[in-house]
């Protein structure tokens, strides 16, 4: 009996289910995405066993890079209507006699990552159109006793938002005195509780060893 020959056609794969699943994954990713922020300085956080996640709101983060520069970052509060960032900047401006325009405040509000700009240069920094224009101003917040803008930022931030938590994100190789300076400044302003931002590391304790 002759074999039945099937017509040799290239099989046509129905892509619809694949598209469906991709759509679902894509939607999920889009909704959960919190964009990874590009920080002005590369910081490798040290490891710890702490499993507490970073709070989303009411934080002021001090970024201490390995070359001892200090950057700050704060959030806008649990609701964008709170507008903590522009309020803090206005407060800072008042102290240093700088008046920021509406547009500059808006620019400051939506700036996505940490800033290490001396307040005198803040206007030029905010006028910059892209990262290339702005990066030269990121020289770190002055912390010396003559011109301690870091202390002023802490003061203003706490005035605007009394519930603010101090987070410290330091590079593991940063010299300790640089971090200590930030801690001292915070303690001068009566902040004694800190959150150190770390990466998770799994550590197992040998229970037998303890029970011996």
């Amino acid at each position, binding site marked *: 009996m002759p074999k039945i020959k099937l017509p040799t056609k290239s099989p*046509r794969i129905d*892509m*619809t289910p*694949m*598209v469906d699943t*991709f*759509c679902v*994954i*894509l939607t999920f*990713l*889009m909704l*959960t*995405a*919190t*964009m*990874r922020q590009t920080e002005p300085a590369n910081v490798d*956080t*040290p*490891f*710890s*066993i*702490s*499993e*507490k*996640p*970073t*709070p989303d709101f009411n934080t002021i983060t001090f970024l*201490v890079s390995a070359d001892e520069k200090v950057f700050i970052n704060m959030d806008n509060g649990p609701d964008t209507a709170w507008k903590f960032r522009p309020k803090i900047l206005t407060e800072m401006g008042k102290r240093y006699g700088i008046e920021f325009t509406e547009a500059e405040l808006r620019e400051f509000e939506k700036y996505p990552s940490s800033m290490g700009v001396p307040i005198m240069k803040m206007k030029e920094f905010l006028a910059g159109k892209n990262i290339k224009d702005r990066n030269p101003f990121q020289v770190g917040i002055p912390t010396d006793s003559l011109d301690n803008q870091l202390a002023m930022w802490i003061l203003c931030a706490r005035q605007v938002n009394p519930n603010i938590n101090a*987070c410290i*994100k*330091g*590079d*593991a*190789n*940063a*010299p*300790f*005195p*640089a*971090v*200590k300076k930030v*801690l001292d400044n915070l*303690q*001068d302003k*009566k902040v*004694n*509780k*800190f*959150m*150190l*931002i*770390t*990466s*998770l590391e799994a*550590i197992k*304790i040998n*229970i037998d*060893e*303890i*029970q011996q």
Partner: protein
Amino acid sequence: MAEIIQEEKAKGGKKKAKKHAPHIDMTPMVDLMCLLITFFMLTTAFAKAKVMEIVLPEKIDDPNQRQPAVAKSRTVNIILGPDDRIFWYPGSVEPAEYNSNIFPPLAELDYSDKGIRQLLLDKNRTLARKIADLNDKVIKGELVLTQDSLAGSIRKLKTDDDTGPIVLIKAYKKASYGNFVDIMDEMNICGIARYNFVDIAWYEDKMVELAVGNAPATSTN
């Protein structure tokens, strides 16, 4: 009747048109989606950074106020040295000692689980065992506790403890921030009830310098 026939004819015509239903090629769409998914996967920060909470003692501005005294027998001084080195000495240095330039020697440890952790666990054995027992019971299901009340019971054990060490952590000026986090972490791992970060005293600075200066000499011998 004529109308019905007309209708049937019309239906037939439509069917013919459907025969050539356009088949949309989905491949470019899939390609695009693949690209977008890859992009989102790479830019999304899934694992949120963790935080470790620490509370530092309030600064004492009033010169008449004195630092709280700690029992000497229970005190363990840990000094974070330069180049990821770590030293410790028990008790305290009396004014009479440091005024006559006699400094107790520092013992060197390391950050591994055989070094500092062994020391702390040895000193903190009773409390560490209590905490481990409690955790064990919960894991085995003998004791049903929520995560919150477990943390609460551990905190209770820690406040009740009166035999464990009192750890004073001091950082030499060349220590790195990573060392500081490591040692704070070690306190959590070993379940130390009482620890604090304090400023380093001048005589302790000197002790570190002595220990660091001595180290190369002893290694060449």
